[in-house]
């Protein structure tokens, strides 16, 4: 089937018109278990791509590998043409590829605004010697703060500005983590289960924020179990199962793919995809 994103028909490992991230032969084994074995995958620039798959499919491990938090046994991948294999995680982040975590990592005993300021990069005051002399970084700090306040307002966290991040609810922490990731104006944002544990009341606002990212030209790659979200906001869906990419394509097409229904949904094949995750008891909110 033709589409605007891939060159030729959508198939696992298909080429894209303008990929931002290209991975080749990325394999990660834990003992005898092959957690990730991706032959070729390309992430389209400026689009929202969802990475889905059953539990244990290797989505998060793949995320960790791409961002330098884990090292693969083999494989190479490039971000905007730069080779990233073996590059430590902090350098990956500096290149403009920022990730969030499945288990939210809000810096609990820092205030919300300090969390945000920490997200900014190239602050000269983060250098040891320069940090001692305030005039060398005060101006930059003020600029960062303006930007942070702006983002907090967008994410409706401005009322919590001076609170410790530990005092936020689970959903608010997800928002904070996402807002913090945006402080450095990344080119690619990688969200690991942005909806996990988020109160349904916050879901819509989170979805809107992700759509806004695309509007501002940021590429988004996210791991998610929530089919509702995948179908409504993603432009492209990549399906993983047992470490491999088993299907790719626009959401409507992928969800009809027998391979996906087989691998991902199993027994729930007959259930309406749009409502599955959201109606499962216990799924929404901690």
């Amino acid at each position, binding site marked *: 089937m033709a589409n605007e994103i891939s060159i030729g028909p959508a198939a696992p490992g298909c080429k894209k018109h303008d990929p931002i991230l290209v991975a080749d032969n990325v394999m990660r084994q834990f003992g005898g278990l092959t957690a990730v074995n991706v032959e070729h995958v390309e992430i389209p620039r400026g689009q929202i791509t969802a990475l889905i798959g059953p539990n244990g499919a290797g989505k998060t491990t793949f995320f960790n590998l791409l961002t330098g938090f884990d090292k693969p046994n083999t494989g190479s991948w490039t971000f905007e043409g730069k080779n990233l294999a073996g590059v430590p995680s902090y350098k990956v982040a500096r290149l403009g590829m*920022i990730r969030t975590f499945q288990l939210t990592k809000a810096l609990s005993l820092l205030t919300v605004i300090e969390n945000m300021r920490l997200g900014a990069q190239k602050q000269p005051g983060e250098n040891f010697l320069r940090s001692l002399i305030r005039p060398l970084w005060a101006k930059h700090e003020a600029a960062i703060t303006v930007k942070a306040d702006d983002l907090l307002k967008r994410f409706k966290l401005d009322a919590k500005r001076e609170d410790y991040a530990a005092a936020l609810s689970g959903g608010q922490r997800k928002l904070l983590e996402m807002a913090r990731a945006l402080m450095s104006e990344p080119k690619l944002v990688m969200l690991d289960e942005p909806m996990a544990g988020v109160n349904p009341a916050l879901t819509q606002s989170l979805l809107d924020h992700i759509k806004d990212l695309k509007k501002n030209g940021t590429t988004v790659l996210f791991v998610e179990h929530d089919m509702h979200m995948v179908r409504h906001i993603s432009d492209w869906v990549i399906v993983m199962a047992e470490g491999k990419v088993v299907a790719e394509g626009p959401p409507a097409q992928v969800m009809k793919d027998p391979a996906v229904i087989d691998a991902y949904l199993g027994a729930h094949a007959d259930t309406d995809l749009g409502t599955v995750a959201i109606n499962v008891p216990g799924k929404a909110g901690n």
Partner: protein
Amino acid sequence: MDWLNIGSLALGELFSPFTATFILCALGLSVHFGYTGLLNFGQAAFAAVGAYGMAISVLTFGLPLGVGILMGLLASAIFAVILGIPTLRLRADYLAIVTIAASEVFRYFMTTIGFAKVTGGSNGLSQFGDDFWAANPFPEGTYGFGPFIYRADELWIRVVAFALIALGAVFVWLLMRSPWGRVLKGIREDEDAVRSLGKNVFAYKLQALIIGGALAALGGMVFVINLSNVQPQSWGTTFTFMIWTVLLLGGAATILGPIVGGMVFFVLLSVTQGIMSGLVDIGALPFLTLPQVGQIRFLLIGLALMLLVIFRPQGIFGNKKELQFNG
């Protein structure tokens, strides 16, 4: 019991070089543990490395004391790098194990007869601080009032020690209000999150280890210059745990905490010693002898540390919301 004497002895501890030593070491530990979350259980070794580095530079290499002090600081930085490179990439608890072991290794190394020519072996070293006493600007005589009456040289070391504390405190304060300090606090909370934001976590942890170690090295130098000798036995685990007690008493992620914590700790130590000796003297504690009183004090320190951790984890100055034990 002579309450006046007990009180005056206790107040004398407020500004003793011994107190200053532990304040400097605790200030360094505050950078390690309070701000960066590094569980360093070998702070005594940083102090010892600084003290030996200075003494050996002066005695073996004939350098002036000023250069010796710089060499001591350099030695503590090298010690931090040696400890940090293999361990800072691992989880926090590994650092605790490695630091406590390294500090014991260093102590035994200094005791060894094989290197006694340089290290002095178990007898230690002396006669390295002459330049310090010669530089005393105060003319002979006594200074001060009440319990705070000092001879010229006693005043000199106190002035220097507490000037170092003031400088150290301002230094740490400047660092911790800056974006650099913010990264450290971020690392204390969750280093992976900080890494994901593009900060070189390892480099920050190593810098923190070096800075906190340098403060301890200065403390060690004050300690040995005051005693006029450096001996390996001084730097046992007791030394480290007293530093921890001082830090936790005052409040871990604070600047004033280590200073006030140190003063309160040594005043209390002196008061308990005074009262218990007094009670033994008048026969109120028939099951104790005078030498045992000194030992019992440390038993009480252990108890105090436990009670502190359980009932007031944030210390005197700490903000309970900001710092609980999560190193």
